[in-house]
């Protein structure tokens, strides 16, 4: 494959855009292209890695954002996930898709992050404060957007209080929007087990919300 030596321009696969690998627009099937890039990446081709990074970044970032609920944390963890993937590409056996493999690495990185940052003693205070604000307490802001952000924070604070296996099942099944099969495969469990865990997580969250007085306040 001929490579243009100077100024390849942007490394994006946009329809009709000329790339650094040839003079004709890319028409090949996406999967075949991905396979080829993975093969080259395994051989240590940095250019191939940059394209894989470009093609998958958005997906992996969303995955980690949904797991953490924090863009700054997610940015760092995503970089870490790719760095690990790059140095462990030799372990990728092709049984799952490359993206699934990346997501699984990202999930492991997020798990390590969760274990490093244990829920602090102030978690309950923070939760109470958030419930207060989100349900229109005395000092609550009336801005709708702010309310939405507060609710998101509340959900992630609540998720931090439940066991990790329930938390990740809930996030992947209820929030992320990936297929149950893929979510189950990532967690190494059956689809049925995933549903059970997500359901248990939901029950725990609801229970915690009731304990915090959310239901009564939000109904008023």
């Amino acid at each position, binding site marked *: 494959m001929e490579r243009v030596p100077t100024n390849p321009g*942007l490394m994006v696969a946009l329809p009709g855009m000329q790339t650094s690998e040839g003079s004709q627009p890319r028409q090949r099937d996406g999967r075949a292209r991905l396979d080829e890039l993975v093969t080259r990446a395994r051989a240590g081709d940095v250019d191939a890695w940059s394209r894989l990074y470009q093609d998958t970044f*958005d997906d992996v970032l969303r995955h980690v954002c*949904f797991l953490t609920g924090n863009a700054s944390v997610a940015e760092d963890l995503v970089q870490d996930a790719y760095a690990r993937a790059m140095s462990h590409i030799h372990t990728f056996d092709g049984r799952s898709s490359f993206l699934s493999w990346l997501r699984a690495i990202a999930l492991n990185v997020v798990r390590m992050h969760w274990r490093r940052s244990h829920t602090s003693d102030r978690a309950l205070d923070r939760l109470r404060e958030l419930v207060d604000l989100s349900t229109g307490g005395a000092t609550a802001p009336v801005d709708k957007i702010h309310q939405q952000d507060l609710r998101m924070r509340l959900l992630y604070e609540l998720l931090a209080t439940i066991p990790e296996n329930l938390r990740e099942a809930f996030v992947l099944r209820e929030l992320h929007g990936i297929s149950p099969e893929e979510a189950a495969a990532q967690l190494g469990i059956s689809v049925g087990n995933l549903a059970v865990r997500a359901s248990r997580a939901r029950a725990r969250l609801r229970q915690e919300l009731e304990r915090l007085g959310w239901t009564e306040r939000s109904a008023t």
Partner: protein
Amino acid sequence: MSADNPVDDLVEAAHSSVSAMSRRVSPNFTAMVARAHAQSPERISAEMVTEAATLAPVVDIRSRVAEPRDNVLDSLVSAAKEGVDRMVEGRRLAPIPPMRRPPRSRRMIAAIALVTAAAAAVVLVLALPRMAGQAQAIGAGETPAQAFHNSENEAPSGTALVPAPRPAASSRVELPASAPEEPLVELTAEEPQARARAQHHAAGELRELSEEAHALWRKGDLRGAEQRFIAITKIGGRGVLAELAWGDLFALARQMDDKGKSVTRWRAYLSKFPGGRYADDARAGLCRRSSDVRSCWSNYLRDMPRGSYRAEADAAVGSPGSEAP
């Protein structure tokens, strides 16, 4: 809000907010490879880090179309999503936050504040009379960013960009030839609503310009795309969209193989965003073309001890052993 299912309310809110939040993060391939090298130097060599730095930047071009959810969203959630999108666009215009610094103790901060206040008082007493006299002379000088905009307004073909009157109902965004940096409209602090309207208007204009620029780029009209990105850097000031446009301008200069333009743009960018997301690349680029390579890289190492190009800088300065951990 459904009290019957409080968890659903939170899930809906979180889904919208997280989707919007993920759009605020940009890829940085070079930094990722440097991290991989730091984690596993035996598998990811320093040469790979250097090679990653020489590749064209991986830029963030994502679909702006909201992804459909599995379940049907009701009108309330749709309205909320629109609100979140508006908020995100508004935030895109906000200034880039300063670089993170290690936290200092309160006592240290108080001491610094005292010393600074004392120094400022002395300087004011000594220099106030001279400053008044110099004020008029300052207008004659220009910053690198101003120099860049002045030079970019003079098209190489000799066809200078001429400001055209804006038609009232034009669907196409006109390119301002000498747009003010920021803000677009002079507003007082007593006009927050007007300011919000102006920001919203500017956000819309920047969005349109950006989409137009990328469309032209895809068609191969590099010059047209370049003009629009330049317009974005003028209108957007120090906002995120403007900074991303600088990144696109760097890539375009490389694509056009115009090294002179690259250097001018790196300088102009650094004068506006000294700690920006492309500062690492811009400084490395300038050092590679510097007449005093050693001194330039030495400054780079001093200012960016964890920069992506530190291996290259070490090699240029000749200080072995300070490679990535």
